[in-house]
């Protein structure tokens, strides 16, 4: 009862945001520059939330997220440009292929733990990128030109679907399984949770939504090339999740919005941006290793009665 009320509230909120921005865009109060910022923000939110599922909820430290984004971006671009498929279907195909790539990468690497997993995912992401560099079909290192098809509607509903699926997954029985793996993998295993299965499922879902983000990204910027998906991109996504809080969905959304705005202001000073990013990363880890919100959600901050006890 209470849950459906909350869901209803969030749906209204999402609809209001969508309509207000859409009206502002059609009346021309927000010009193309702001539309670009808003769409970039949506792409970053999708990436942050999908990585949040892998790192924050399941506790599997992956730093190769840009690789799956690249798969989604390229596959959807091929679908629209070479096969003439409509954009929504191209997004779906991009997501499916990114998810398959996630499955392919996840099954062997998720047996590894911690540092090794991080390096292996980084390695896979680099291999994906090198494959695209060597594929002449998609333009190799020069990249491909793509028609712009993304608009605010696609980007926004991409975000809504991403958040909806991932938050429902987190609150489901499967999500609890994933959280138990994050807390203590050995104990979860001993309690009869199929840890490998849940790790792979979370990884595949995360990769698929990175693919959605990639599809929307590639159809926004006219042009993609493999260097756009190098591991600096993965680190960019990582910092959203880390800053927001490892395990907090709303935290990663807020961090993605905040850092998108910051990076647009620092667009002309890319070095300064990276220095600030890295300093923030270090300071957060030294003084608040769980990120700004920890595993809490924003809504929990207003429920004082329930605090304490479960803060660990």
């Amino acid at each position, binding site marked *: 009862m209470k849950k459906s009320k909350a869901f209803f509230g969030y749906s209204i909120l999402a609809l209001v945001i969508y309509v207000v921005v859409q009206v502002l865009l059609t009346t021309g109060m927000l010009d193309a520059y702001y539309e670009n910022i808003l769409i970039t923000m949506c792409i970053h939110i999708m990436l942050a939330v999908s990585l949040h599922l892998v790192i924050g909820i399941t506790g599997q*430290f992956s730093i190769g997220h840009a690789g799956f984004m690249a798969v989604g971006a390229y596959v959807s671009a091929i679908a629209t440009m070479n096969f003439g498929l409509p954009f929504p279907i191209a997004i779906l195909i991009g997501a499916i292929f990114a998810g398959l790539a996630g499955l392919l990468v996840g099954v062997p690497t998720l*047996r590894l733990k911690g540092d090794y997993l991080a*390096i292996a995912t980084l*390695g896979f992401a680099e291999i994906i990128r*090198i494959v695209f*560099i060597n594929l002449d079909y998609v333009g190799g290192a020069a990249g491909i030109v793509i028609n712009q098809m993304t608009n605010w509607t696609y980007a926004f509903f991409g975000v809504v679907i991403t958040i909806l699926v991932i938050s429902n997954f987190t609150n489901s029985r499967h999500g609890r399984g994933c959280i138990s793996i994050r807390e203590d993998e*050995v104990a979860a295993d001993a309690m009869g949770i199929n840890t490998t299965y849940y790790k792979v499922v979370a990884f595949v879902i995360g990769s698929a939504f990175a693919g959605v983000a990639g599809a929307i990204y590639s159809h926004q910027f006219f042009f993609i090339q493999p260097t756009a998906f190098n591991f600096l991109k993965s680190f960019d996504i990582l910092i959203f999740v880390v800053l927001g809080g490892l395990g907090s969905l709303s935290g990663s959304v807020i961090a993605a919005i905040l850092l998108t705005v910051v990076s647009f202001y620092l667009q002309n000073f890319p070095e300064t941006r990276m220095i600030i*990013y890295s300093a923030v*990363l270090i300071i957060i880890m030294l003084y608040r*290793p769980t990120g700004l919100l920890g595993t809490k959600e924003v809504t929990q901050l207003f429920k004082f009665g329930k605090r304490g006890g479960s803060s660990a």
Partner: protein
Amino acid sequence: MMEWLQQLVNGVSLGSIYALIALGYTMVYGIIKLINFAHGDVFMLGAFIGFYAAIRWDIGFIPALILAMVICSIIGVIIERVAYKRLRGATRIAALITAIGVSLFIEYTVIFFRGAKPEAYPELLKESYIDLFGASISSKSVLIIAVTIVLMLLLQFIVHKTKIGKAMRAVSHDADAARLMGINVDNTISATFAIGSALAGAAGVIFGVYYTRIDPLMGVLPGLKAFIAAVLGGIGSIPGAAVGGYVLGVVETIVSAVGFSLWRDAAAFVILILILILRPAGIFGKNAREKV
């Protein structure tokens, strides 16, 4: 045949650089179980220190090498004291993210102060060719391999014959027990960082002399590959890191030589994934059972 010999020498020269960086990775990992992502950037700093020293004061190869090693070891200790020391009790993920942060911080601070443009390394060594069984081998490669071997023997001596080396081995075996035995763990860890960073600095100068082109992001890929070399040899094992570095260097050179130069970078990552799946402990590593 001649060509293969030449490629082998090229591979071993490249492998020497990987091996020197990998030694630092493996020592630090052995002692505090941290992948020091910033290690590749210490390597980059070493290259730049050698470069500026050679340009400003017109010094030769060996003085530039020693200067880079000394300054890099100081930088390594500063990184350890400022960023990593507080993280001793933190989770592995927190330590790893900090290391990534330090790495990016060093790279972009260097870009901020001097721009991202690459530099051409000054000619510190006279290039001449030695004729060996019909293959012409650069004197640079020979000297580089020799310097690497000298440094490795020096490291082997430090680790096995000196007091600080004994302390390092004790701390990497069991830090708490070492502390109970009166070993100053903090200083030992700092010493490990100093030695590892000095080797990375040396690798930087050698890289500059051999490949003659340096830039602020040059440490990223060699850093990752040196880590792969350390994993290949068995992380935590010093001879393993050396062997892993040479194997990786030779494999990469062969991949390029048979005409897949664009796939060269992928080869290292394929090796990494294969070794992690088939034999995660590496060539020289011991399999440790997980205890609860």
